[in-house]
């Protein structure tokens, strides 16, 4: 049980024991998307009321999301090295992830390049909305029409098809709590960072 629990192998292709990476790699992306969605919501809230505290929330959530994005890329690279034989492949999902990280790094550069608080918040919010929408198109629409090396795309079986008896339900028992745990951890970190920023602002005032 747990992390050491039985995993369905060796019937499922070349995954072998690395299938346990599922507990880390996939939740990273769920957390990133969740945090970015929250950041988008805060940007929209900022634009509808021009309350600076929403801007701080959006900023911290985007920052935390990028940490998870980078970890998602790293865990994915280790996995790709093992199963596909290379650290990086020209795959539509890898490109999508890389572009998402790049466009949010650009978001931080944009934020730092404007000094005036309200103007920074407004322009950053606008860019955040554009970046999010294009990222969603890229990550969720484009893989539907092109092939991908990832499970569930381009003829590769999805993980749910690796069902042989109770082994798969063993994995589910670890996977679902792992997703919940990582997502909650992401939001918790973003929340703490946001509160530190609020306190700093109070101390300055």
């Amino acid at each position, binding site marked *: 049980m747990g992390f050491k629990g039985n995993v369905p192998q060796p019937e499922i292709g070349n995954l072998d024991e690395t299938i346990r990476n599922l507990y880390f790699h996939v939740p990273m992306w769920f957390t990133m998307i969740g945090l970015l969605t929250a950041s988008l919501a805060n940007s929209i809230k900022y634009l509808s009321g021009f309350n600076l505290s929403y801007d701080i929330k959006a900023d911290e959530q985007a920052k935390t999301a990028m940490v998870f994005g980078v970890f998602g890329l790293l865990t994915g690279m280790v996995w790709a090295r093992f199963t596909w034989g290379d650290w990086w492949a020209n795959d539509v999902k890898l490109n999508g992830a890389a572009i998402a990280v790049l466009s949010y790094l650009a978001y931080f550069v944009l934020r730092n390049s404007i000094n005036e608080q309200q103007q920074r918040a407004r322009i950053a919010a606008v860019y955040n909305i554009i970046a999010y*929408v294009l990222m969603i198109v890229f990550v969720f629409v484009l893989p539907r*029409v092109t092939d991908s090396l990832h499970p569930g795309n381009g003829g590769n079986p999805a993980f749910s098809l690796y069902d042989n008896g109770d082994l798969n339900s063993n994995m589910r028992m670890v996977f679902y709590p792992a997703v919940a745990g990582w997502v909650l951890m992401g939001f918790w970190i973003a929340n703490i960072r946001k509160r530190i920023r609020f306190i700093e602002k109070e101390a300055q005032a």
Partner: protein
Amino acid sequence: MFKQITQLIAKDFLLEWRQKYTFFGILLYVLSTIYITYLAFNQIIDVNTWNAVFWIILVFASVTTTSKSFLNESGNKQLFYYTLAKPQAIILAKTIYNGLLMIIISLLSYLIFSLWIGNIVENQLMFISSMLLGSLGFAATLTLVAGISVKAQNNSALMAILSFPLLAPMYITLIKVSSFAIVGTEWSNSLPLLGILALLNIIVVALSYLLFPYLWRD
């Protein structure tokens, strides 16, 4: 609203006609880049190389074309425009103007490119339709990014940083479609991708319409 848009587009064309600065500047830029490519490669017959060189030239040409979009509308002039026109009219007019400019420039660069580097495209209609959708999309995205970067003072460096990730969905789709067109595959392969390009164009124009008012007011 409609009248404002047409008047603003007419104003942009009139300014361009009087100054003859942007258009011929970009044309010269494209001409010299393609000539350098010619000096390095002579003729290109490899599909991937042809594709890559063509799109790199076009992406950089479109960034150069659009980066000056709001230079005329900064400072006090912006206040003047603000009293005259709705921000939505301003962004739509700029997008349409840049789109038309980009269509002309991309067609001309395709012509010059075919002349020097050679034309290996099997399915011309597929290639040109993807190129037109692509130039419209580049123009729409880059006009919005130019609106952002003109607000953040140091704009030329920021323009590149902000626009390349945002253009990525477009150029990755474009490179795929045009490689299909070069090899001459069935339309059924490329139609979904052309659909995505059209969808991206609509999304970007809708976002500009909704978000530009927030950028414009100071």
